């Protein structure tokens, strides 16, 4: 029996946010209604590349209810370009195409009208005169000097081309007995939240302030809006009490907010824009990585992998944004959970005439994990070794932590072998193997998939200075503020929106734990950006570590004040006092209660210790643990914490139909101390479901003419309750030494390994036919075609 270490942390508590959502009382952006509000519909380009000669808006402007039509030329002259992550000043991006269209679907102008329906009607009256230009869709083609540049001013399609060598790669390859190489491709998919992106903006000319309500998950959102619109930072007020209907990384909406903010300011009326599904899919600028890997590994006959060369070529789409950085985060876990002595990594990001890429769950880590895990399967296959044994041989051992990897990050803690053993037991591995063979005997194609991987968490942003030397950012803080009111009740402020991660539950649980008071008595509020302390929003699996950390540190400060007040009041040294259940106890049995402290702090200044300020409030602005240095020689320590997951899957399909059905799914998960078990499990289940989609179903596919073919839910297929099987989670806890309670991140869990595991299972199923699937998603048509071709 494990000792119960915490009263509220790791205990089963119902997430407090749930009640308003099951009652339909969330506060989503589309629910916000402002007086005199106008509505926007954007007009999309049909060409993947074109020069805009003229836009005739005259007929649209004459329609009843149409207020204005904004063109790219107008907005391009009025605002600053959107922020670029890399040092690529000639790759300029505006909310509407300025002079040139760069992908099919890109917005060229926007109608503002009394209703969304009228705005949509008016789109049909706008005449665009444009000259089509050559275009490029494929990343390898875009890389060629002969390819048409998406941004002619930039001179080529190359946004990023960096070669890193960490350790003695050539030497390790020369010494190793074997090597092999392969290519795999991660298809273009995304998180595709059920709520599209939306924004409402309202300009108050008397106070000179722009109010923004948005379904956003974006660091420094208000700063970016202000910079683009040439406003002071304190003239943009982003409201954090908007519930976000799913994001998983992509809800950045900076082009939307600058467009709507600009219109609101120009017209002096509240403006609303909620993407419809088509706008979201083809022009919401929220596609995920599309990445081709060329991998070479060097290894010994016993299966020990010595070195790896990886080339990752990513198709960023038409504009840069932060997309190229998704090649940067994986540097922090470039060897996965394995002891690989040296690595060379060639990271290339190119523009193409496709929709713009945005941050997706894991920020590039899931594709990289898929490549690493494919390497493990290939080495095992080459050596005719068991895939599991090969991994167990290469995994970092529990006594090797802290473990420095070649690219400069140090893994904090873990016990990978123990997690795997637990999973094998829980899934009954021998029976699983027998079931696979039994399915095969029945004529099914059956396979077992295995994937081990890491989730770097607690995100700071050190991939930015690593990939862009002009960027000196090392700070990546989060904050929390708490206040005890005159009646003694605690309110905490969190300074970001949430999109289902349960931050209110996180903060109340942590505060309750430290202050030893009932978490359900704590009120959580979300002020707007102007009333907030600095933060960086829930990205990079960071909030348990960073918001949880800042909350705990705020509570410790408050507790210290409670003790000081009690010490003064009781006339005893503070060191002799103990804190229990909100009260302060003296060794002689006297008790200074929470309410006593409230009385003194709020109403009896004359009884407070000399020099102490009144009130019971505290705040904390916390920097990422271990986040204190810029890169040196192409190396940097990035993430404080590394969660581990191990996936074990059995699936089978009929060889003619080719539709995989998952018979068994077990995942082992170690994210250190869990704050709320239901929330962490939920995110892991959801991540696996999303990974099943990425592996089998979901792809933003383009035809040769540059048109997006999967732009509705009828052709971009997402897993339903039929495709996602029951999933068994096996928990393990290796606390992190760097965090308050030993917690690590879990927001990207599941997704980081499930695509690799599904791919592994399908390839196991078809291995006897000598078929290899080297691209995700592996759709049922690809499976049945490949098998039919072999049979024919």
């Amino acid at each position, binding site marked *: 029996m494990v000792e119960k270490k915490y009263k509220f942390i790791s205990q089963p508590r*119902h*997430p407090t*946010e*749930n*009640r*308003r*959502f*099951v*009652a*339909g*009382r*969330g506060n*989503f952006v*589309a*629910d916000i209604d402002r007086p005199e509000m106008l509505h926007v519909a954007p007009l999309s380009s049909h060409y993947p590349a074109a020069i805009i000669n003229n836009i005739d808006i005259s007929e649209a402007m004459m329609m009843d209810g149409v207020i204005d039509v904004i063109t790219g030329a107008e907005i391009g002259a009025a605002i600053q370009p959107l922020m670029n992550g890399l040092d690529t000043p000639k790759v300029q991006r505006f909310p509407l195409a300025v002079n040139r269209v760069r992908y099919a679907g890109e917005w060229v102008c926007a109608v503002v009208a009394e209703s969304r*329906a009228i705005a949509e009607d008016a789109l049909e009256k706008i005449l665009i005169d444009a000259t089509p230009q050559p275009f490029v869709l494929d990343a390898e083609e875009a890389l060629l000097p002969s390819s048409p540049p998406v941004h002619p001013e930039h001179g080529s399609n190359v946004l990023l081309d960096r070669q890193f060598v960490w350790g003695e790669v050539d030497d390790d390859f020369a010494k190793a007995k074997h090597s092999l190489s392969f290519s795999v491709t991660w298809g273009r998919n995304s*998180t*595709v*939240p*059920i*709520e599209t992106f939306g924004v409402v903006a309202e300009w108050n000319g008397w106070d000179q302030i722009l109010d923004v309500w948005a379904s956003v998950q974006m660091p420094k959102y208000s700063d970016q809006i202000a910079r683009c619109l040439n406003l002071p930072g304190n003239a943009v007020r982003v409201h954090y009490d908007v*519930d*976000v*209907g*799913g*994001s*998983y990384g992509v809800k950045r909406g900076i082009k939307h907010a600058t467009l709507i903010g600009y219109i609101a300011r120009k017209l002096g009326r509240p403006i609303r824009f*909620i993407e*419809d*599904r088509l706008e979201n899919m083809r022009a919401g600028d929220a596609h995920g990585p599309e990445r081709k890997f060329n991998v070479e590994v060097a290894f010994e006959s016993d299966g020990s992998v010595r070195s790896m060369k990886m080339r990752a070529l990513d198709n960023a789409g038409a504009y840069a944004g932060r997309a190229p950085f998704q090649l940067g985060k994986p540097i922090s876990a470039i060897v996965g959970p394995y002891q690989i002595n040296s690595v060379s990594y060639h990271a290339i990001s190119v523009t193409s005439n496709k929709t713009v890429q945005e941050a997706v769950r894991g920020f590039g880590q899931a594709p990289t994990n898929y490549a690493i895990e494919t390497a493990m399967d290939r080495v095992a296959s080459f050596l005719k070794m068991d895939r599991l044994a090969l991994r167990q041989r290469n995994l970092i051992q529990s006594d090797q932590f802290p473990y420095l990897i070649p690219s400069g990050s140090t893994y904090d803690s873990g016990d990978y072998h123990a997690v795997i053993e637990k999973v094998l037991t829980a899934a009954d591995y021998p029976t699983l193997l027998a079931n696979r063979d039994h399915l095969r005997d029945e004529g099914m194609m059956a396979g077992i998939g295995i994937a081990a991987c890491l989730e770097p968490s607690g995100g700071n942003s050190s991939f930015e200075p690593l990939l862009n030397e002009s960027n000196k950012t090392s700070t990546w803080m989060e904050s929390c503020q708490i206040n005890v009111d005159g009646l003694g009740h605690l309110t905490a402020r969190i300074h970001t929106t949430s*999109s*289902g*991660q*349960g931050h209110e539950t996180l903060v109340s649980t942590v505060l309750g734990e430290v202050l030893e008071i009932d978490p359900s008595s704590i009120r959580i509020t979300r002020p707007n950006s102007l009333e907030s302390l600095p933060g960086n929003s829930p990205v990079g699996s960071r909030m348990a570590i960073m918001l949880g950390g800042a909350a705990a540190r705020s509570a410790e400060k408050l507790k210290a004040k409670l003790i000081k007040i009690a010490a003064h009041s009781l006339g005893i040294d503070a060191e002799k006092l103990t804190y229990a259940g909100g009260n302060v106890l003296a060794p002689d049995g006297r008790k200074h209660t929470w309410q006593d402290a409230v009385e003194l702090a709020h109403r009896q200044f004359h009884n407070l210790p000399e020099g102490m300020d009144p009130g019971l409030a505290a705040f904390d602005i916390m920097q990422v643990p271990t986040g204190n240095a810029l890169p040196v020689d192409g190396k940097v320590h990035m993430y404080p914490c590394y969660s581990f997951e191990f996936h074990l899957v059995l699936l089978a399909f009929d060889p003619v139909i080719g539709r995989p059905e998952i018979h068994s799914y077990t995942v082992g998960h170690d994210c250190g101390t869990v704050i709320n078990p*239901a*929330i962490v*499990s*939920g*995110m892991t*289940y*959801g*991540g*696996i*479901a*999303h990974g099943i989609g990425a592996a089998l179903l979901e792809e933003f596919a383009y035809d040769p003419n540059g048109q997006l073919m999967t732009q*509705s*839910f*009828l052709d971009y297929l*997402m*897993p*339903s*309750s*039929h495709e*996602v099987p*029951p*999933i068994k989670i096996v928990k393990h806890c290796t606390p992190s030494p760097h965090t308050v309670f030993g917690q690590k991140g879990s927001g990207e869990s*599941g997704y980081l390994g499930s695509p690799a595991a599904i791919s592994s299972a399908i390839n196991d199923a078809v291995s006897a036919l000598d078929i290899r699937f080297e691209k995700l998603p592996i759709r049922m048509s690809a499976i049945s075609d490949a098998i039919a071709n072999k049979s024919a």
Partner: protein
Amino acid sequence: MIQVSIEVNDKTVTAEVEPRLTLLDFIRDVAGLKGTHAGCEHGVCGACTVLVEGNAIRSCLVLAVQADEQEVISIEGVGGDLGRSGELSIVQDAFCEAHGLQCGYCTPGMVLAAEALLADTPNPTEGDVREAISGNICRCTGYVQIVEAVMLAADRLANRNYKSKPGQPYDQTLG
């Protein structure tokens, strides 16, 4: 413009509407009830699910004029005192308890799909539940805790002291 009269939860909403107005937009913009959510507006995701004459339907695929003179239950019509008192129905309460949601956007549609299932099938199998919610896409949960929530609700409905209509609050069933 056409006059329609739709009974939404506890009251009749009468309005002159354009023939092209969807029931979804009628509920949100005319009746002013924001708990019914637009997801895809082409009938795939199920976020806009409401009950029309007791059946779970997608309000984005139905025109307001088609729902004339019909009885519609939206998420606001579920739970105690028609959702105004903070009391939850058995199904809603089970969703909270099993954490059958995360961001809350698909949740009203999921809850109504579950209410419709349990009204017809008081003792569903897990397969029945998966079938009943298969037209509702959730991107957060992987459905695992949603299935748990509906099974929990079914169990509680089966073991309550007297029979009541789905949508009634949990507390009322204790007496």
